[in-house]
Each structure stands twice: as C-alpha cells, then as structure tokens.
C-alpha cells in the first residue's frame, strides 16, 4: 500500500507544485506540523517559514503566508508567496529582511503582525 499523499501548492496565478510525497512539514501559525498519510482533516494558516517536502529528493519552499487544507490524503496549500529556496536570490532576501526589521521596530503594528514579522526575519536569516 502506498504511503504517499498528494501535495499541491497553488498560487493565484498558477499551480506551483503537484506531486506525490511521503511527508510534508509546514510552518503552521502555531508551530510546525508534519503531515503524513492519514493525518486528521485539518484547516489552518501559515506563518512565514519553510515548507519542507520529504521524499527521495528534498524540496524546500519559503512562504510568507497561506492557507492549508488537508483532507482525504490531499494536502493543499493556497499561497501567493511560495518560492523555491533555490530561486530565492540573495539581494531579494536581504531587502526583505531589512524591510521586515524596520517594520518590527514600528509600534503601529499589532503584536500579531510583529510575531509574524519576527518569524519572517529568523527564517530568512537561517537560509544560506
């Protein structure tokens, strides 16, 4: 019996990824979740972080936000910001870090926004 789940990343303008895989780790709002076959049906949303697809070859995507639905062994992520790590160029990354850092300083943003921003910074910094 197959131990795989179908995994899709869809952005407003295209389907970024559609594969069968063993395990996916997603940065859900309240912490990372690993999803395997027969996980309970789930709806949640993402914070900035890395989506890790564990298979023979590992793939990693950076996301800023998104909505996740898992049901009947179909994992669906709707996001407008998914980027494969290899496509993320350095200048762009540094620009995003700077932008986020200046926003964190700004007290106009709510605690929730700042929580998300701090995750964004730490994730971006962890990528090399």
């Amino acid at each position, binding site marked *: 019996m197959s131990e795989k789940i179908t995994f899709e990343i869809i952005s407003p303008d295209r389907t970024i990824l559609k594969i069968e895989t063993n395990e996916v780790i997603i940065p859900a709002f309240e912490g990372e979740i690993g999803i395997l076959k027969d996980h309970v049906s789930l709806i949640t949303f993402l914070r900035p972080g890395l989506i890790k697809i564990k298979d023979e070859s590992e793939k990693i995507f950076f996301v800023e936000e998104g*909505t996740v639905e898992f049901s009947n062994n179909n994992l669906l992520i709707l996001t407008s910001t998914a980027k494969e790590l290899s496509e993320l160029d350095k200048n762009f990354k540094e620009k995003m870090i700077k932008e986020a850092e200046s926003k964190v300083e700004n007290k106009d943003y709510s605690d929730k926004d700042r929580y998300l921003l701090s995750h964004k910074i730490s994730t971006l910094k962890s990528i090399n």
Partner: protein
Amino acid sequence: MPSLDDLKKRIKSVKSTQKITKAMKMVAAAKLRKAQENAEKGRPYSQRMQNIILNLTKSINDPENAPKLLVGTGSDKTCLCVLLTADRGLCGGFNSNISKLAKISFKNILNEGKNLKIITVGSKGLDQIRRDYGKYVIKKFSFKDKKQILFSEAELISNEIIKLFKKGEFDKCILFYNNFKNVITQIPRAQQIIPVENKFTGTKEQISSPYEYEPDEDEILEDLLPKNISTQIFKAFLENAASEQGSRMTAMDNATRNAGDLVDKLTINYNRSRQASITKELIEIISGAESL
C-alpha cells in the same frame, strides 16, 4: 455614379482599415493565448478557496456570531455593485454585455427601493453607465497604464471594499464581469461576494469531513474571508482579460472579413465603370471616324 478616382480612393481606404483590423486581430490572438492560460491556471486557486470557505461555513455552530463578511449584516438595504470592464474599446460586445447585465440589476435594485452604490473598474464601463447611473458611482479605478493586472491590484480593490463594509456603507456586494467560456463565447456574470454565496463552484463533489482547526474557526475565517474577496476579484480580472481578448479577436476577425467583402464589391464597381468609360471612348472614336 462615383468617378473612377473616387472609387480608387475608397478601395484604398478600406484596404488600409483592413490592414489595421487584421493587425489588431493578430495581436489579440497572441494576447488571448496568454490571457486564457492565466485564466485557466488561476481557476483552481479561487475554486479551492471557495470550497474551503464553504466547508468552514458548514461547521459554524453559532451563526449569530459568525463574521459579518460571511453571513451578511442581516439586512439588504444597500447594494454595492462592482463593475469590471476593459479600458480599451474595439472589442465587440464585451463592454456593453457587462454593462447591459449590470444596468438590469441596477434597475431592479432601485425598483425595490434599495440604495445603490457603484464602483467601476476600467473606464469603458464607467462611460456606458455614466449617463443613467453616474450619480451612484462612489469610486472608480482604472489600470490603463498597467500592462498586466496582478494580484496586488485585486487586493487594492478588495481592501477598499472591505473598508467600506466595515464602515457599514453597504450590506451586499455583487461583482459584474465576463466569464470566459471559449474564444467566441463569453458570458456576462453577476457574482455575489458579500455575503458568501452558498453553493459549490467546484466541479468535484467534496465530502464534508469534520476538520480540525488551528487556531479556531473564527480566527481562520477572519483571515480567510478578506483573502477570498481578493481572490474572487482577481479571478474576475483574469476571466475578464481573457474574454476581452477573445471578444476583440472575434470582432476584428469579422471586421477584416467585412472589409474584404467591401473591397471586392468596390473593385467590381471600379472595373465596371472603367470598362464603361473605355467602351464610351471607343464608341466616340468610331463614330467620329465614321462621320469623316
């Protein structure tokens, strides 16, 4: 009977018009392919989004406290209509089909004694409704200088709509756009986006299994509903873009063909009158020679 010279000029002018319409058709065809691709690629996102929201809606136990964006304000006094049209003309019935549908709805809304508010996107739609419904227009958007409409533009509009909704400016929001079916068929559609319509748009029958939510339903809905509005508007944009090009292509194809027919007709006329004048001249010469 127009003179030979006049006919020549007409033929020339029709031919150059034909060249323009032909070029426009080619451009539209090239753009259409891209726009159609975009529209088709964009469909899954909006469909899935809608389905998630509908699944969520089913699991709400307490409709009283559900977010207003989902269930509405409870009344339907004021209706906000968002009219999505193109910024350019020469695309057959594209703009007027949307406007026609919208005008019927406007009339119904006003006849029922409700308040009407209009937001127009794209200048052509505004031009067509300005005379009758100009005073109801509260906001106009135009992305004339943008080559391609991106998600950020859709977000801009949806933010505006949500802001108005939070201020209690309207109770119901309807989107007017052309749904792209195929190159020659585009169907004007009115889609209600606030409150969310209660039917599946996807083709797949979804089994509503109980979901686990993280964080709770309310918070997810709070986050998802504004996103859904942007998504639906973006989808409408994509459908519209494809429809516009399709419609223009068909219109320009017809125009090119008509111009061709006209050229043929004029050429026959031209040849006839040329022949007539030659015959006339011949008769004159012959009868002149005979009288000598």
